[in-house]
């Protein structure tokens, strides 16, 4: 049985700007199997985050094909993409992007509510307890430290049990120790739920914790940079 969960074939992304069109991704082909962890590395502007956005259906490829979970994302409309994300996807951002007017519990419960879960708040509470924030549930993001906010974001991403977790430099805004703790938590979550993880990072050490590392430079995958870290 084919267990490929991500299949990118010559995916391209160009954005129009005032000064003209900018080619962000210039033909990326990549296959990822279910349960795999991928570390995306590369310098700033190489297209890592854009590639992540294509995988999450957050941005539409302007060329090539992007098939995730057997679905061609480039041909889906806005509402189909929302539906796809609700069912299959969890995202962790560098800047956390918690909703400031919601408590930690409400932030985590929201994707569950969107998925129509009747026990959204109970599951959210369990998820927060699992990341060590059982006693901070009623706190607002502004009342939490950066590390705590990112733990809430991790809980929010993991709560609906997505098959695909996307993480965009989740430790980029945190100090070293806190960042290590968050990464441990992220990998623990992935191990527990068996999701596929695509992690964007600047850190070769973090990338090394993944099954495979994919290097990007100027919008293309750099030859030889794709390797099984375990090998």
């Amino acid at each position, binding site marked *: 049985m084919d267990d490929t969960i991500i299949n990118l074939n010559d995916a391209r992304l160009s954005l129009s700007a005032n000064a003209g069109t900018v080619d962000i991704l210039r033909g990326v082909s990549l296959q990822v199997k279910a349960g795999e962890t991928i570390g995306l590395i590369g310098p700033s502007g190489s297209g890592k985050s*854009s590639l992540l956005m294509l995988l999450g259906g957050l941005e539409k490829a302007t060329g090539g094909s992007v098939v995730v979970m057997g679905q061609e994302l480039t041909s889906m409309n806005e*509402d189909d993409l929302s539906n796809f*994300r609700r069912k299959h996807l969890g995202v962790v951002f560098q800047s956390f*992007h918690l*909703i400031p007017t*919601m408590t930690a519990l409400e932030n985590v419960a*929201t994707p569950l*509510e*969107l*998925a129509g879960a009747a026990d959204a708040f109970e599951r959210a509470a369990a998820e927060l307890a699992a990341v060590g924030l059982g006693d901070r549930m009623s706190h607002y993001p502004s009342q939490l430290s950066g590390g705590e906010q990112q733990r809430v974001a991790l809980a929010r991403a993991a709560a609906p049990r997505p098959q695909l977790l996307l993480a965009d430099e989740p430790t980029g805004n945190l100090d070293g120790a806190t960042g290590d703790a968050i990464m441990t938590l992220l990998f623990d979550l992935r191990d527990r739920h068996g999701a596929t993880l695509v992690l964007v990072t600047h850190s070769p050490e973090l990338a090394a914790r993944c099954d495979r590392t994919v290097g990007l430079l100027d919008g293309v995958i750099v030859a030889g940079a794709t390797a099984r870290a375990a090998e």
Partner: protein
Amino acid sequence: MSMRLAARIARRDLRGGLQGFRVFLICLALGVAAIAAIGTVRDSITAALQRDGAALLGGDAEIQLTYRRADQAELDWLNSTFDAVSEIIDFRSMVVVDGTDGTDRALTQVKAVDIAYPLYGTVALKPDIGLDTALRGTSERPGAVIHPVLADRLGLKPGAVFRLGAQEFSLSAVLVVEPDAAGSGFSLGPRTIVRTQDLAQSGLLQPGTLYESAYRITLQNDQDLDALKKRADDIFNNGGFRWRDRRNAAPGVSDFVAHVATFLVLVGLAGLAVGGVGVSAAVRTYLDEKTTVIATLKSMGAPRNLIFQIYAIQIGILSIIGVILGLAAGVALPMALAPVLEARLPIPIDVAIQWGSLAQAGVYGLLAALLFSIWPLSRTDHIQPAALFRDANLGGVGWPRFRYFIIILVALGLLIYTATSWSGEVWLTLWMSAGIVAAFATLTLAAVAMKILSRKMASLSGLRGRTSLRMALASVGGPGGEVISVVVSLGLGLSVLAAIAQIDQNLRSAISRDLPDMAPSYFVVDIQSDQLNDFKSMIQDRQGVDRLQAAPMLRGVITQINGRPAAETAGDHWVTDGDRGITFSANLPAGINLTSGSWWPADYTGDPQISFSAEEATEIGLALGDTMTVDVLGRPITATITSFREVDFSSAGMGFVLSMNPAAISSAPHTYIATIYAEQSVEARILRDISTRFPNITAISVRDAIERLAGVLRGISSAVSYGAAATVLTGIVVLIGAAMAGERSRTYEAAVLKTIGARRSSILANFAWRFAFVGLAAGVIAVVTGGISGWAVMTYVMENEFEFDLMSALMIVGGGIAATTLAGLLLSLRSLNARPAQILRSRE
């Protein structure tokens, strides 16, 4: 996705507070408050008219006769049918006072009453004596009471003696309250009240004199007003009378209030449209700030419709709050101003909550909020989750989906439909709505053009070295929609003001400058046939008198056209609404042109014939050969229309809609009416000589009448100007909102400019320029659109010439620049005072 989920998320999201919505709430509340306040006053007046109907009318019902008193048979019917009957006789006359330094005189509206007057209400006098005592007078002469304005004008104090015709009266007191004053309609002279019997020797109520008699009656509660009116029809010769009853006691006041209130509500709707721009801008700014939240929700899989619902619920809640605030203000304002209002109104009113008008204002507010929120709300569709990965605003660019266009059109349609049906003035409302929509489109296009022009000018080589000016132009022409919002909202408010100023100035010019040039000095009425020759010879050869025109006059009511009730053919045309002046002439008068048909031979004695005013005939739909029944002094005369002629009413000269052949009506008692065209320097002397030699004749100064009319117009104009000022105030709120929204970027800009060495004064000049440009644009566009509206109203509605009033235009442009610059600079001071290091660090 359920609405409940949307409501839950909306509620959580609203915890962030309503700070960004101050402008939204103020804009909506101001518009609603203006409409609610107008409705509250209008309905309070209407309620007072209904509540006090009998007192305002002076009876439960009134039968009014023109030119005659009831005959014995009619009086018998009245006395046998009703509990109480009171006879009033109303006519114009001159109060003449002989003083030590000459004779003084003034026009007055005399009300001669019987002992039963007033059937309802109480006449209050100063000194506080009863009316009966006051009218009894002294042993030498009967008593009279007069309006304080007349007493002041003639310098009369209680005890003073004056004449009406040939009868002397002793002034007993001045009138403080005349309970039925509002029911009497507009009059040119202040009131004098006397007993009817005391006029017997005055020589004023001779046959043919222009007077009206009214029989006020009281009814048992169970008497049917409509049945009584029908019965009166039979007794009083089929419609040769006018019937009024307590259900519509003061039609003049209620019609006037309804018309003015309708116009003010429409001005209020224009204010709501201006506020709508603020609403729209506030929603856009709010959603810009929510880009991250929306993108985050979308990244979790929230669909477009759910996001739209979340923010539509929030805006809906805010709209309800704004409407409630507006309604509260709309009730509180008239209540607070009640003493001022009551002093200026002709009837006593209780300003109270009027639920009907509040509901209307609320519906207008909610529809306007819906109309102006949908487009910015639809921008949530275009916010991309990718915004979370990029430090760029990836939201809000693109056209709304088709369904939102439908909602916008439905909201607009409902707003116009409700305004049209509630105002009762379909065409006025539709024209005004079209005007607002056209002004909106014009202002938006002009604002976009101004942005493009500013951008182009900013890059002109000639502006190099003029950094502040160039930067201001670049800022106005740069990205962002605030400039357009401000130009549209302030421009629309100023447009309403400009249009009103242009119409007001043109009307005033027409009345006070143009009309006196062509209008006569005096209208003289009640000239008896045997006085005519003496009167003519006294006036026409006098130095300073240009010309004298005289014509016989009777008054009559057109009751039937072609054998059917007149209203069936003429509807509510003014010619058939009440009694009209009728003249007769053997020959076609000089200077009058027939448009069709032919004038009767000078010695014609056959069946009665009518020559009718051509313009009115066209309006009513009359043709040559039609018959018309006119009730003159209770006698119906049926005549055939044999010619149409041109009648010019615009010059305030003598104009009769109806002229008949002499044999038809000359035997009926009649008097002559005359117009005197004279130089102003001899007017006073003419008046003195007329009243000395012919005490029964009344001369009405056209100049005074025009002044009174101009006074009424000034009142209306100032009421409308207050409405327009509320519109401009809303425009300024939008301006302040836009200035506040731009504060963060101005602060950053100021910090960067200071860092690279700019002085505070040049930064301030830069900010001042950009606000002044916006004010200039709003002012200029307003003057152009206001001028076009003013021209259209003067040309097509008033059918008068239009002359552009430069002074008001300059004041509006200057006001626009001053308001924007001042508000902008005040709101820029904080940006200017911020320390650069702090700002730049927090931006990193």
